[in-house]
């Protein structure tokens, strides 16, 4: 029932309903928050990243202290089942969280680029647009890049994010994965495209928050 109530709450937000319409239909009712366990899969890896202002900082700054939803992207990604799907889910979640005061200040999003050669802080800033600005909806969304493949590789490997070069060596492909990280910096869920749905993710965020009570 809680899941159904949550779904109703999600759809009750007019702007969110627009995003939900764009997302693949969820073919199951996800289990209710707190009715299942999210395991401590592994610590999120650390390394140096760049903010949109070009300043270097440890990734740990963005994976500790709040519940974090982290996804890798390329700004040139166009596969509808890939980065754009993650983007739509993040957008929908941002609105859902904005509509729920009890979640304000407890969740952050991190979008980290795979492509240090093209996705400079300036490019990431343009890619982020107004998303990187906290409009008082209780959620910060950080758009990060790295200086080099050398700095990116331990992060990609540490998360277990697949990426590979495809035909003619000029394309990168990856399996869509989004990582839910708890306040202590542990990866607690890894979403593939089938589970990357706002309703599921919001339940998981609620499940982590219930652990603190």
């Amino acid at each position, binding site marked *: 029932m809680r899941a159904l109530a949550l779904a109703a709450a999600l759809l009750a937000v007019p702007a969110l309903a627009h995003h939900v319409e764009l997302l693949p239909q969820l*073919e*199951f009712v*996800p*289990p209710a928050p707190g*009715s*299942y*366990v999210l*395991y*401590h*899969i*592994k610590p999120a890896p650390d390394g140096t990243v760049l903010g949109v202002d070009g300043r270097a900082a440890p990734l740990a700054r963005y994976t500790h202290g709040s519940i974090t939803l982290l996804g890798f*992207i*390329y700004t*040139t*990604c*166009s*596969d509808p*089942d*890939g*980065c754009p*799907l993650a983007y739509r889910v993040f957008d929908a979640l941002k609105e859902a969280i904005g509509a729920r005061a009890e979640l304000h200040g407890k969740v952050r999003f991190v979008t980290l680029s*795979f*492509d*240090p*050669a*093209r996705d400079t802080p300036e490019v990431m800033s343009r890619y982020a647009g107004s998303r990187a600005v906290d409009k008082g909806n209780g959620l910060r969304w950080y758009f990060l890049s790295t200086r080099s*493949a050398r700095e*990116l*590789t331990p992060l*990609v*490997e540490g998360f*277990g994010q*697949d*990426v*590979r*070069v*495809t035909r003619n*060596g*000029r*394309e*990168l*492909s*990856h*399996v*869509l*994965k989004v990582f839910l990280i708890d306040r202590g910096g542990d*990866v607690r869920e*890894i*979403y*593939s*495209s*089938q*589970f990357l749905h706002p309703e*599921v993710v919001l339940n998981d965020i609620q499940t982590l928050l219930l652990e603190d009570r």
Partner: protein
Amino acid sequence: MRRSYCVAVAALACAAYNTVRADETCNSPYISKLIKGQEDYVYVWALGVEGLGDGSDKLVTVDVNPKSKSYGKVVNSVSTGTRAEAHHMGFTDDRRHIWAGGLSESRIWVFDIASDPAKPKLVRTVSDLGDKSGFLGPHTYYALPGRMLVQALSNTKDKGGKTGMALYSNEGKFLDAKPMPTANGGDGYGYDLAVNPKKNVLLTSSFAGYANYMRPLGELIKDAEAMKNFGNTMVVWDLKALKPQKVLAVPGAPLEIRWSLNPKDNWAITAAALTSKLWLVKQDAKGEWNAREVGTIGDPAKIPLPVDISITRDGKGLWVNTFMDGKTRYFDLSNPEAPKQTYEKATGKQVNMISQSWDGKRVYITSSLLANWDKGGADNEQFIRGFAWNGKELVQKFEVDFTREKLGRAHHMKLGSKALQAQAKGG
């Protein structure tokens, strides 16, 4: 070896794989890299035989690329240094490692297949399954994102059939144990597991415990009491919560589970070993999951003992191996409610596992079931045989005699690719 990604290539385009696609037709849908073309290797997990070679279980690499000079030959083997009834194995979701285990104990061996796909390297042994879960005989290794779900067959307490699943991180950290249900019709047995993430469903099947599978088959089938100790159920689980939802009555030890890979389908198929029946597990219009017997494999009175099955990528065909008569059968699954056998061929004196390439044109078959269930004398052939399938006939292309090569009993197979791993490492 560290991977160095080609992140500085001039023009990048992101093409994300939708995980509804599966691996070469029978692996976890979370496995990210598919061999859509010609595979280079078949990894064979082989049971050691006392007095043969070093007598230990080993992971054997067979070159199966027809363009290779060593086509049809063994190019490598890695011994575990012990004999533990090697049985099944599975890839991690990133396909960089194979987890493989034995049924006579609770250890799991982890092989790196990414650094050198021809020469897997034993990099880790997971030894805490028995202590942490109480389960014995890890059987199925099923990739979830960042995790491995391991289905066991038995338990350390009485070595019977009450067992469960253990969840590990890819790094080998034990996360949780989930006993098979014993309430609401559950019999506590386990065998295979397979997921349909789109439906949030995990499906499990049921076999027998150590006390049965480690016993000589001829002796076991004469023991009426012991023959009662086989699973007769499948269980529908909530995949996300890892909680049992419904127990399905599927008598006769339902073994391997194959979901149709067609995204429009909502069914899985299995073969019950003792009754020689095909069962369909399907979601009805109300969303309920039900199991129904839909076909017969050979003559059940002769106990052909269906073992491994392999579904085509379009969900329209199913290979079924029957151990006792050494036959490989093909069923037309165009109507999964009524499978029709359209082909059969004796492919060995005893056959167990069957794997096919993504395009279905190549089929690989191995011989061994269990050390104490394999046949004796001249019938105890131990091999991998590679076949070409043109839709009408299986034509044998190569064979590796595992006894002559002093490798042991050939059991589970997984496909390997040089190009796939080279891409993963960057260029």
